[in-house]
């Protein structure tokens, strides 16, 4: 009986510790990737995304230009500098059914290239691409992780 009680206490403590972290906010990672047809470089830091890139795009070279990770509180917003004088505003709203709902706006030259509300699977990734950058295009990977 004592054994079961101790096990239950241990499990409850662990659950409590996990629950406390859930309300802190969402860790958002923004990666800006330059995709070009010049050369055949594949940045080793992007290796986890290679299957998706190979399936979705036909560029021969991918290079991670910038990566930034911040924790954003629910209901707040953060602005990320994106190469080419662009800004990406990310505003997480809620975590429901293991999906992170957030507003995402990509701004360039005073106009929103994209202004969207998405529900992204927790620990998942959304790609935002197309803006011209140097001799190629920019692909922005947006990852969200709420524990």
């Amino acid at each position, binding site marked *: 009986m004592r054994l079961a009680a101790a096990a239950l206490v*241990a499990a409850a403590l662990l659950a409590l510790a996990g629950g406390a972290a859930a309300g802190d906010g969402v860790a958002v990672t923004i990666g800006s990737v330059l995709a070009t047809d010049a050369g055949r470089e594949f940045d080793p830091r992007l290796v986890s995304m290679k299957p998706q890139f190979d399936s979705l795009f036909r560029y021969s070279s991918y290079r991670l230009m910038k990566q930034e990770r911040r924790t954003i509180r629910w209901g707040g917003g953060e602005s990320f500098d994106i190469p080419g004088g662009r800004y990406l505003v990310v505003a997480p709203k809620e975590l429901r059914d293991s999906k992170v709902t957030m507003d995402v706006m990509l701004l360039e030259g005073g106009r929103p290239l994209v202004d969207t509300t998405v529900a992204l699977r927790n620990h998942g990734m959304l*790609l935002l691409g197309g803006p011209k950058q140097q001799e190629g295009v920019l692909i922005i990977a947006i990852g969200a992780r709420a524990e």
Partner: protein
Amino acid sequence: MTCREAEKLLDLFLDGELEARPMRTVALHVTRCASCEALLQRQERLQDAIAETYAEAVAEVDFTTFWPGVAARMTDRRRPVRTWLSRAREIGGGRAAGLAAAAAITVLGILWVWRVPPAGAPVRTDNQVRIDSLVSESRSVALLSEPESNTTVIWVIDDGAGE
């Protein structure tokens, strides 16, 4: 939003302390106002310089005596635990305490194994996204999807017509 209104909010904007709506408004203003963008870049440089100075100051702190100090304190802290265990044994609870500790470790171990996938195991990603709304000022927007991992791409086809 006027420049004067934006200037007042730039500090909060840099620190990410604005609510979502003013954050978007300030960001929108900054991308189309050269003077506010220059001001923001100056503030960013200042913040970077402060952060670098702070990092340098922290790097100069001597931590060589830190760990020996912690180790000495840990040695001191072990004594009450031993006393507690000895007292538990004295009153006949030693076996129960040992069993309870073993049970707790077992539970933690099971949960750890359950939470951490074995090394080398393929991790299946699922990037499923639901798009509730999408507005764009670019010429056209395409949605692409990769079925294996459900990765979605919002692709803007932009020729800079709005500039």
